[in-house]
């Protein structure tokens, strides 16, 4: 007889998800499914909208990383108009985006992930949250965290008019520039944030690295996969969040490919399973091989750790120092220990703050030439940015009046759908012991597997399916172990009221 354990909803992440664990007669984990139950339909309902409106529509894919969608969309729309962009607009967008990164990384690290480490994985669920964390670390530190995230939001608002759901990017540039007085206000805020990024690293050293149990969990726990890494890099192979080429490196450190945004469809494809609304991207040239690890696997991660794994260096000195410290401690690069993502996020924040400092000192940043009026409509554009939660691709086409005719999105978290499925199962198998009922602490440790990825299923569920005839193939170990067909009745007749 099979027993099933359901974790629903999974919590401390963005969006909806559930985990179904099947136990065999002996109580060992037989199978585990990480299901995404929700979708919305952006790729279709942006069709027919004026293309320049898309950057202010697709932000609503995700309210936690709206700027990622805003920027990827802006770059795709720039492409639809021939691609000319005012140089300072690129700088302003990048500067804004660094502030956005800091807001999002702080929210994830402190509010979503930290409860597992500061309160402990098996703490009382009623206090295993940011409020519990504030109560434990004290109002002074809690207040600093709240203030730092507020500063990051405030900087975005000052540069681009809004933090959540910006409306600022237009083809060829941005709708408003940065004035000298605004810049002077931002400078001390950036300085304070730079200090906070170092404070966060120290906190990580004290609380996580100072605890032998946690270090052991990170390095030797089940939270590890032999899959590859993806991330956006600049010309020097340093991480770049706003622009660059996508680099894929295997878990032994060898480059698999490096592609320009316009080439994405040659390198990445998306697999569909019947039990989740979310697609499973894989390396297209290798083909879909199932949820398998190994050097020939076509599965990759696109996470903060993956971004650092594909990079040769960081773009700024303080970040480089933090990067070296991290890999020295972890003992190898690329690193496969997924819980190290929490650390990687903090290393990235150092680069974010240092890049903003660099822009603050750039005399061009207050230029009033922040837009060029597009000369014509060329009809197609692809924008890739590195969202906090993974490589984000927006691909649009429009007609000669600039009305959107198609959109395709491969979203940050979607990239990680397969590895999250795989690691959740691995952790469940390791931690759930036959004959012992798993308590909430064990189940929370299962949730820590996906939490390392900071997944966002608001982002990932931008499309929306219904019911169609299908052939189902269940893969195990790379082999099709079951195949069956169903649904000759095609699209559900929808006899129900909805």
């Amino acid at each position, binding site marked *: 007889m*099979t027993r099933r354990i359901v974790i629903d909803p999974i*919590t*401390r*992440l*963005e969006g909806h998800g559930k985990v179904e664990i099947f136990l065999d007669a002996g109580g060992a984990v037989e*199978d585990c*499914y990480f299901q995404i*139950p929700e979708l*919305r*339909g952006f790729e*279709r*309902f942006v069709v027919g*909208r004026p293309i*320049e*409106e898309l950057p*202010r529509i697709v932000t*609503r*894919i*995700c*309210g*936690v990383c709206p700027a990622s969608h805003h920027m990827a969309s802006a770059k795709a729309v720039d492409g639809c108009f021939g691609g000319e962009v005012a140089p300072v607009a690129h700088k302003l967008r990048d500067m804004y985006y660094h502030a956005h990164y800091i807001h999002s990384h702080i929210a994830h690290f402190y509010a*979503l992930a930290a409860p597992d480490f500061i309160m402990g994985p098996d703490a009382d669920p009623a206090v295993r*949250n*940011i409020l519990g964390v*504030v109560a434990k670390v004290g109002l002074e530190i809690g207040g600093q965290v*709240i203030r730092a*995230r507020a500063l990051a939001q405030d900087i975005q608002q000052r540069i681009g*008019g809004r933090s*959540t*759901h910006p409306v600022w990017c237009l083809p*060829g540039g941005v*709708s408003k520039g940065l004035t000298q007085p605004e810049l002077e206000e931002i400078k001390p805020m950036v300085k304070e944030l730079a200090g906070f990024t170092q404070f966060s690293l120290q906190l990580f050293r004290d609380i996580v690295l100072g605890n032998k149990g946690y270090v052991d969990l990170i390095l030797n726990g089940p939270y590890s996969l032999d899959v590859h890494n993806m991330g956006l890099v600049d010309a020097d192979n340093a991480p770049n969040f706003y622009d660059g080429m996508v680099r894929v490196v295997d878990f032994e450190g060898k480059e698999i490919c490096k592609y320009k945004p316009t080439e994405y469809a040659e390198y990445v*494809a*998306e*697999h*569909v*399973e*019947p*039990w989740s609304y979310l697609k499973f*991207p894989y390396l297209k040239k290798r083909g879909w091989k199932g949820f398998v690890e190994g050097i020939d696997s076509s599965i990759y991660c696109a996470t903060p750790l993956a971004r650092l794994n594909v990079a040769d260096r960081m773009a700024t000195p303080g970040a480089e120092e933090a990067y070296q410290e991290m890999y020295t401690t972890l003992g190898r690069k690329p690193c496969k220990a997924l819980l190290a993502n929490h650390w990687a996020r903090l290393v990235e924040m150092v680069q974010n703050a240092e890049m903003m400092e660099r822009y603050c000192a750039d005399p061009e940043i207050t230029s009033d030439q922040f837009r060029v009026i*597009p000369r014509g409509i060329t009809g197609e554009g692809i924008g890739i940015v590195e969202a906090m939660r993974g490589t984000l691709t927006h691909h649009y086409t429009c007609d000669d*009046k*600039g*009305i959107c005719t*198609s959109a*395709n999105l491969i979203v940050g978290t979607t990239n990680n759908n397969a590895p999250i499925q795989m690691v959740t199962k691995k952790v469940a198998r390791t931690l759930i012991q036959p004959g012992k009922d798993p308590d909430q602490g064990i189940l*929370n440790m299962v949730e820590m597997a996906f939490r390392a990825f900071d997944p*966002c299923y*608001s982002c990932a569920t931008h*499309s*929306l*399916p219904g*019911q*169609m005839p*299908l*052939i*189902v193939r269940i893969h195990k170990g790379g082999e099709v172990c*079951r195949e069956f067909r169903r649904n000759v009745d095609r*699209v559900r007749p929808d006899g129900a009221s*909805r």
Partner: protein
Amino acid sequence: MAENKKLQVALYWGAACGGCDVAVLDTNEFILDIARAADIRLWPIAVDGKYKDVEAMADGELDLCLFNGAVRNSENEEIAKLLRRKSKVMVAFGSCAYMGGIPGLANLTTREAIVDRAYFHNPSIQPGNHTMPQSETQVGAETLHLPRFYKRVYKLSDVVDVDYFVPGCPPAPAQVKGVVRAVIATADGGSLPPKGTVVGASDRALCDDCSRAKAEKKIARFYRPFQVVQDPKRCLLEQGIVCMGPVTRSGCGVRCPDSNMGCRGCYGPLPGVHDHGARFLSALASVIDSKDRTEIDAILDGIPDFIGTAYRFGVPASLLQRSVRS
């Protein structure tokens, strides 16, 4: 309320982006005041409450539920009904719960077209794919379930009784504070406004709070935002740039016009107005500077996609409701 008893609160999302939750986080240190006054029993983005914990509650055990997001599928509706039963006060929080929001634009297309795009005709789908997600999938002896997707998007009040509405995409943090303070004050005998009230917003039009210089509105040509550089001091509509300020409730902080971009109506229609887009059409009709039909048509050609613009946040709440074909 019993002495020393904290408010029991749930925050939940339907078909949403998480921006409403971030708006709550954006109240910054006020979050700590909320924590002092309330037990947050369910808030999936930040707190570890599960559905079974909610099911175990007595009816009416929650004092307040802030529900954000639209109703897109059967799970959204089921949880909305569950939370309604458990909550004394149900608030539609944010534009999606209030009016359907941007996900409601899906009502202008069909479920089948969306499906086709997502799983069959798209540049990155696995070559030769025939598979679609199913509401039931057999795996061995077990069945995995996914919620059923509705043909269209609903606003929260289409599926449950709603006590108050908080507009905004997302609601401005200052407004969030105001609403939460009002609820906390009920513990000390404060009273709530009449049921059905839109709270956390102004009764004025956005134009009344916009600092741009306004003169007589006479529009001879509309410009799309990419076609001109906006004058940052002058009324956008008078520059021929579509802005829904005249017909939209204020309370957002004028954040889009202050970014040199026109309002798209996320705070919803003015009090007493049933159909936001129709009201905007009527406002535009009064400012177009022509009596000649051909000329008027030419002027209106400057606004492609009127429906997707004027009903950007509220197709499900409009008289249109949905398109029956793509």
